[in-house]
């Protein structure tokens, strides 16, 4: 099995509150891994440790090991900016910058110092194509991204991540602000993206996890209760608590 990310015995504290307890996780390359569980179970926290976004929270303390392609991402010599280019993130609410569509997509390039217009144009086209936006938006690249409808904004955020050419894409409830039709489109897009990228998604929508993911982890109060192939977790859960959750008796 090819693991892109391996998490071992991860403890995370916000001050004195322990949000993650000895959590394990294996993220398979070019697969969709879903993290499910009720609110406050630590699934978003776990996701945010994978690109070290939790570093921004004051008073956070992390123990344990997270390996990205075999290298500890919390090692002292890890370049956090470089890590975040390899592990991109799509957020809960679409958050395009208040800039033009083009400037949104090229943001990662400009951060990296790539100012060549031709290179940028090529990346804008490829990234928007990758997020299924090119045909709709190719003639209005200078429009403000904030004028787009929500689902296009969210796919623009995907395009913005694709432009950085990450290995892993983290998605934190990417459809929670979208209607069912837009949600379906994002899900299709994710299935398309997994041929080239490794995807980890946090979702509170069990059907969504069942529809699109290859592996699922059920979390509860900071514990990884059960982790395995999605079909197994949903049809024959080993743990009673997982069974209660996926059958809708809890959460």
């Amino acid at each position, binding site marked *: 099995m090819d693991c892109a990310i391996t998490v071992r015995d991860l403890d995370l504290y916000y001050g004195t509150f322990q949000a993650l307890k000895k959590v394990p996780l294996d993220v398979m390359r070019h697969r969709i891994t879903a993290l499910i569980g009720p609110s406050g179970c630590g699934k978003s926290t776990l996701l945010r440790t994978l*690109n070290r*976004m939790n570093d*921004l929270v*004051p008073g956070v303390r992390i123990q344990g090991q997270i390996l990205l392609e075999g290298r500890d991402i919390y090692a002292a010599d890890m370049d956090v*900016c*470089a890590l*975040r*280019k390899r592990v*991109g*993130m799509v*957020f809960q*609410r679409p*958050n*395009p*910058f*208040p*800039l033009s569509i083009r400037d949104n997509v090229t*943001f*990662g390039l*400009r*951060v*990296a110092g790539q100012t060549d217009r031709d290179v940028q144009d090529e990346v804008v086209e490829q990234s928007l194509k990758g997020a299924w936006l090119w045909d709709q938006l190719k003639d209005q690249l200078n429009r*403000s991204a*904030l004028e787009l409808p929500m689902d296009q904004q969210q796919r623009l*955020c995907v395009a*913005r*991540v694709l432009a*950085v050419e990450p290995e892993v894409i983290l998605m934190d409830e990417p459809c929670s602000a979208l209607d069912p039709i837009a949600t379906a489109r994002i899900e299709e897009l994710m299935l398309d993206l997994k041929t080239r990228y490794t995807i980890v998604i946090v979702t509170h929508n069990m059907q969504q996890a069942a529809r699109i993911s290859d592996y699922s982890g059920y979390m509860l109060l900071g514990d990884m209760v059960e982790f395995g192939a999605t079909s197994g977790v949903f049809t024959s859960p080993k743990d009673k608590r997982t069974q209660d959750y996926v059958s809708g008796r809890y959460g």
Partner: protein
Amino acid sequence: MKMSGEKAVRFGLMLLAFSSLASLLLIAVFILKEGVPFIIHYGVREFLLGLNWQPHKQEYGIYPMIISSLWVTIGAMLIGAPLGIAGAIFLNEFVPRTVMRIIKPTIELLAGIPSVVYGFIGVMVLAPFIRAYMGGPGLSVLAASVILGIMILPTIISISTDAIGAVPNTYREAALSLGATRWQSVYMVTIKAARSGIVASIILAMGRALGETMAVIMVAGNAVRVPHTPLDSVRTLTANIAMEMGQASGMHRQALFATGVILLCVIMLLNGIAISVVRGGVRRK
């Protein structure tokens, strides 16, 4: 009985609200009534572009004072704007919230210091320093610019800090998650998102600098002439009015009111721009 009480309170509050509006209107009407006839009588061109201000010879050219006000204001902006914006960015992005909660009110306290105290410091400390190390009379464009630059800091920092603080955290997160450094996320996203508020703070500060009188009288030197270097003594429009109103009468008095008309127009223009910039910024979001 109860209803009539409600009505009385409402009426009373309305009266108070309108009285402040009325006083603004009265001031404007009064100044215009006294000043505009003079400008028409004396000639717009002669008044605005005349080089000589010699009331005893019936010469009322305010060109040197317009240029002086411009120099002093621009100088104050050159000093105050970068400091203020940098301070606002620092407070928002690089300092813990708790520290900011102490520093920001302290900076806002600067606005409460009477302008005569600023002027006093300018006269006692800054002017002698400039005279000793840079030459000239000390009381100069430079001294006035530095003092005004400090005086407008609270305006710029306070409004800019609010504007930057209002930038959604999701923008910062998005920038950082794309591999931006802290500083890249600040100048590529945060400042752009807070742009309208920052511009408004600068324009409002410009209005303050242009209108400030006491501190400027004390440190600018008050010589009526077009400055050639920042070390020259100058007299601003506001200083001119304040210094001469006491002993002016007749034409002279009207000329000072006319100077007030010019100031009023410029300040209203600046405030108008500030308001439209802020509204424009809100509409874009």
